[in-house]
């Protein structure tokens, strides 16, 4: 069965997360990344991921996953970029300050293809907000082939471990070649 470029990107990201072998994956729902969340849950069912679970807000996810490195473990957060407003105090006072590696993969909102008239107010400044908080950001979008999305996620996870800090991959799903690609 053929897949769209967006579906290929979803699959590459899920495969990259599995390849990182995290000890836990916390997620906050978003329509754009629902296929990635569902892919992670399917990986858990198959035994490829040990623990995938929902949280209500992003700072909870940061608190939970930040604890893992104290036991020499590693965690991932799947979320939407407008949640970085919720997560920023936890990210800075916990993960950044204590040098705790974790990976966040987040879809972007507020850009090309966006239907919401106000979400750009938080989403547009997110990269600067994170970088000014000493949190590195890597970005993928329509110009990157699917395998590059997976490779970026995988290497961002390694980068978090190597540099002992939270690392963010921002994923912009809009693609003019795929009518089903959601902002």
């Amino acid at each position: 069965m053929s897949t769209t470029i967006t579906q290929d990107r979803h699959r590459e990201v899920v495969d990259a997360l599995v390849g990182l072998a995290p000890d836990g994956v916390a997620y906050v729902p978003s329509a754009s990344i629902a296929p990635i969340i569902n892919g992670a849950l399917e990986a858990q069912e198959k035994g490829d991921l040990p623990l995938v679970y929902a949280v209500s807000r992003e700072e909870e996810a940061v608190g939970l996953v930040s604890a893992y490195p104290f036991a020499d473990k590693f965690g991932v957060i799947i979320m939407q970029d407008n949640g970085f407003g919720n997560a920023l105090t936890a990210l800075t006072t916990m993960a950044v300050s204590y040098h705790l590696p974790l990976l966040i993969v987040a879809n972007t909102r507020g850009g090309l293809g966006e239907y919401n008239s106000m979400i750009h107010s938080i989403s547009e400044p997110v990269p600067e907000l994170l970088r000014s908080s000493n949190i590195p950001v890597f970005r993928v979008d329509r110009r990157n082939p699917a395998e590059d999305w997976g490779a970026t996620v995988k290497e961002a996870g390694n980068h978090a471990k190597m540099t002992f800090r939270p690392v963010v991959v921002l994923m912009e799903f809009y693609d003019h070649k795929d009518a089903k690609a959601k902002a």
Partner: protein
Amino acid sequence: MKRIEALQAIVDATPDLPVVATCAATSRELASIEDRENNLYLLDAMGLAISVGTGLAQAIKDTNVSRAVVIEGDGSLLMNPGAAITAGYLAPENLVVVLLDNGVYASTASIPTQAVTIDLGRFAESVDLKVLRANNTEELAVALKQTLTEDGPWFIHARTEPGNEPGTKLLLIDPVVHGDRFRRWLTPRLSA
């Protein structure tokens, strides 16, 4: 019971367990009793203690470290009540949350919290945490003993007097060094 008396009871019950302490006066007073390597002080991560404790409980599951203990305050819990909901949802059997409820933000001018009228023990019950109540150090010691031997997730609702212990020193420590001390204490015990 004073908060420092409650903290002493927790210290007595947890010589070999990781203890995550909420920020400000609670962490300072815990350190003033005994600055143990198994203490993890959240120096400024407001409302995050239960989340960190829940993550730690996940991380030590099926290891030789039997419990993750969290010391939380009413003001901090009210800042992020979703953390308790998530703890109830995830239900780690090895999680013990001790809520020291003095009804005020003791670290910020003792302004009253919503716990003056809201029963946080009842809240914890509603999110499927196993709740025990303690109004003095004897009851707290009994509750701690139960939570360290029977499966949770536990939530001890301990009522304490408002106010801070006079003369307690600030925790002027590097969080990286402090966190690494805790990690070095914890990791060898996971498979010991």
